[in-house]
């Protein structure tokens, strides 16, 4: 095999004129197993290129965990917890609203047969009540979603 090319590359390497690609050719060349036919003037530099190929990877998963903890994964977790904690309340409010609506609705039919006009007015009132109750629930929900921007932080972590 002709080692002229490698010799040339080496020469240019010492002068700092090789491209990244040529340097990787050199490194690949020297990472091959040692053979006696490689001339001594090339062979002697093997250690330099082999050394450059060894990369340590000392930081593992535990390091990641430590960093993520330090940069405040915690506050993100807290906002999620807050929402989770309030969830049963929303559910309870929804159930109460449903019961009230159904209760009103159940009472309404008994009056209807007496006087249709009165019944109509009552029904209108009840409808207005229900709308009121719904708006307050919606208002609660809106005030909840205002907290949403706090979650933005978590999107950086995705």
């Amino acid at each position, binding site marked *: 095999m002709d080692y002229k090319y490698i010799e040339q590359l080496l020469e240019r*390497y*010492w*002068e*700092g004129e090789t491209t*990244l690609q040529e*340097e*990787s050719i050199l490194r690949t060349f020297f990472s091959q197993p040692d053979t006696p036919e490689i001339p001594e003037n090339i062979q*002697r*530099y*093997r*250690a*330099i290129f*082999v*050394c*450059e190929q*060894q*990369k*340590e*990877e*000392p*930081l593992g998963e535990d*390091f*990641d965990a*430590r*960093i*993520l903890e*330090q*940069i405040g994964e915690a506050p993100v977790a807290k906002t999620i917890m807050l929402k989770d904690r309030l969830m049963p309340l929303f559910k309870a409010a929804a159930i109460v609203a449903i019961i009230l609506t159904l209760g009103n609705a159940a009472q309404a039919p008994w009056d209807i047969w007496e006087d249709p006009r009165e019944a109509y007015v009552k029904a209108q009132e009840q409808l207005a009540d229900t709308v009121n109750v719904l708006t307050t629930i919606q208002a609660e929900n809106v005030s909840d979603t205002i907290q949403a921007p706090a979650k933005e932080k978590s999107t*950086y*972590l*995705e």
Partner: protein
Amino acid sequence: MKKVSFRNDILPLKNELYRLALRITLNPAEAEDVVQETMIKVWNRRDRWEELESIEAFCLTICRNISLDKMKKAENQNSSLEEGHDSADYSYSSNPEEQAMQRDRIAVVRQLIDNLPEKQRSCMQLREFEGKSYKEIAQILGVTEEQVKINIFRARQQIKQQFIKTENYGL
């Protein structure tokens, strides 16, 4: 500029940052501290991520600056051992027993690199180990491309000469 994610884009740089920090501080525990500080600093500037040309270069620059700070602090604490020896001769060639133990040539090369001045060391690390272009290195170190080339040229020459010297000495 695409969206940068800490978990997917920055955290995986940890070992690259560690290698650079280790190359500068020459102390594994210190290097790990540096990487940790770098990560937190980068995180605290997350509002600027989108403006950056290269988040990797940004991280490496911060990592180097923190490493240099640590070195300065360490130097203040104890009298510098660095000043006297000029990387020319190191213990492995002075003591025959040690010499025998340190026959491992790769260890010799590593030692030679570690004995270079900091700038050359950083340039070598980024070029030879991480495969960065001159332009990227210049950006990371905040110097001109020309200076990077000069540093790498000097570093390679130094390593070559010292390596041959030790080889001949050993024979």
